[in-house]
């Protein structure tokens, strides 16, 4: 898929902007704080109806304005799909193919994007919540049913935690109601966990050859899903695909039964997907604890690149790749690998403050947009060697 054009009105520091994109690589170049990330954010927003860096939609509207408007033409399997989102202080209205989608979940999923920002280099190093968010976001884009189960799970979890607290404080006594919440939580937890386990295996499958390649076959990668439910990995190996969810449901029920007294004492739910994590191993060692900075970066990069392939496998189309300031963070070899693997198949948008940090000679005539203070100063295709002459 690729985005052919983008129109912005009152989005961040853009009063008006219209851009025509290359199917391949598009480069936003400009000094700090002039609006490069804002452009990537608007593309991300057009795809997912939310920002990658804030939960407050209001921040996206140009200061002192009431509405923002983002629209674009996406090409998907040779068909044009018009996407548009109106954003105001009262909420947002999304249309695809000129039809309003009342539920945002019906809108999301047409356009797939993967964002890679310097923070993502933290995927390996950061807190477990970062990795859970990563799974929810990426899996949610490919699988709407997953999103539904995650949201059900979270609602039940909130009720159950509150009720456990009341049982602890002896404000409530009825364990029948706890049993019911436990059954509902186990059922949704099983749906979420089953999908996450499968996702992790697929991610590993795609990331392994990528890491091997970047490290010139010196390193091997393993990705493990660390479940708070004992022995869930073993279940995955022994069960048929259609009985995994049932087996996990059963396992959750048993586990909750065993620790019921303890959970009441603590007043909170201690087992479930909300307590899980991912671990990355390079040559058998946990990269989070023992990896060098370089290994941590290479692992993050491999995972991101694996996601591109995974999404292609799941949806039949390559997603759109958004690279915010990451090229300058990668050494020559990693950058070469990245640019080489997206070449020609993935429409890419990248930001940079200077073209020197980008191996443009690896790119087939990228399109360059010069950004200054919320305006597009110029847009043109770069032919080979042109950059050198310009500077």
């Amino acid at each position, binding site marked *: 898929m690729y985005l052919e054009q983008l129109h912005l009105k009152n989005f961040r520091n853009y009063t008006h902007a219209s851009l025509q994109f290359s199917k391949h690589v598009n480069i936003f170049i400009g000094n700090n704080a002039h609006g490069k990330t804002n452009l990537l954010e608007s593309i991300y927003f057009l795809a997912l109806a939310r920002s990658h860096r804030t939960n407050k939609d209001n921040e996206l509207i140009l200061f002192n304005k009431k509405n923002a408007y983002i629209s674009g033409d996406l090409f998907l399997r040779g068909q044009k799909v018009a996407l548009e989102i109106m954003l105001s202080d009262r909420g947002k209205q999304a249309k695809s193919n000129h039809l309003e989608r009342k539920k945002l979940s019906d809108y999301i999923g047409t356009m797939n994007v993967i964002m890679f920002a310097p923070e993502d280099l933290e995927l390996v190093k950061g807190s477990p919540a970062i990795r859970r968010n990563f799974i929810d976001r990426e899996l949610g884009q490919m699988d709407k049913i997953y999103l539904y189960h995650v949201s059900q799970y979270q609602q039940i979890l909130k009720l159950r935690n509150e009720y456990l607290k009341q049982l602890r404080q002896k404000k409530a006594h009825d364990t029948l109601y706890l049993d019911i919440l436990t059954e*509902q939580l186990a059922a949704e937890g099983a749906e979420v966990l089953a999908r996450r386990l499968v996702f992790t295996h697929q991610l590993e499958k795609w990331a392994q050859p990528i890491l091997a390649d970047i490290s010139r076959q010196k390193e091997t990668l393993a990705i493990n899903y660390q479940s708070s439910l004992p022995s869930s990995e073993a279940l995955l190996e022994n069960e048929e695909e259609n009985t995994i969810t049932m087996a996990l449901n059963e396992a959750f029920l048993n586990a909750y039964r065993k620790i019921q007294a303890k959970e009441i004492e603590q007043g909170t739910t201690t087992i479930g997907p909300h307590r899980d994590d991912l671990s990355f191993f390079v040559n058998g060692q946990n990269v989070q604890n023992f990896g060098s900075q370089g290994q941590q970066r290479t692992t993050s990069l491999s995972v991101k690149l694996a996601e591109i392939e995974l999404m292609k496998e799941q949806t039949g189309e390559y997603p759109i790749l958004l690279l915010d300031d990451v090229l300058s963070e990668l050494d020559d070899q990693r950058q070469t690998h990245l640019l080489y693997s997206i070449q020609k198949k993935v429409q890419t948008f990248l930001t940079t403050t200077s073209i020197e940090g980008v191996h443009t000679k690896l790119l087939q005539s990228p399109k360059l947009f010069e950004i200054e203070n919320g305006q597009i100063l110029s847009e043109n295709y770069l032919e080979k060697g042109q950059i050198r002459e310009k500077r």
Partner: protein
Amino acid sequence: MYYPEPLSKLMDSFMKLPGIGEKTAARLAFYVVSMREEDVTHFARHLISAKRDLNYCKICGNLTAQEICSVCSDTSRDRSLILVVEHPKDVIAMEKIQEYHGFYHVLGGVLSPVEGTGPEDINVPSLLKRLQNEEVTEVILAMNANVEGEATATYLSRLIKPAGIKVTRLAHGLSVGSDIEYANEVTLMKAIEGRTEI
């Protein structure tokens, strides 16, 4: 310029209603001033009467101007069926389709630890008492299909089933997370036909 005091007081009252902000309140208040005096008097009287003359039915918990509501006092209805709903407005939605001829029980809410609502805070005890005395053979649960509604329905079915009464759940046809109030009549009818035992 400020609103004259009687007008701003009226606006303040309108703003106590759900979904009404200052702009709408001002528009409504100005409109009231332009209405005929007789209509305004009626309006005020109806407001007070709606509050003062209504209470909850002693049997089913529905809103009524009598002690016992019109459904509960209708002897031609099927005494073997009780349909359990969250709110009085759900009774009205159900009565509109004229497909259901049993009795109702209005909980006045759902179980919710977050809201601090337990079984004693909604009409669960009165429902269980009714089931002991009456010749009911089937209880139909028609809570909304959200997380709290599901948990409440399951809770009730666990309490009722041991008494040998059939329990069915009105869920099919209602979209997930939807409120009964908004379901259109066709889906409600399908929902009644497709009720399932739980």
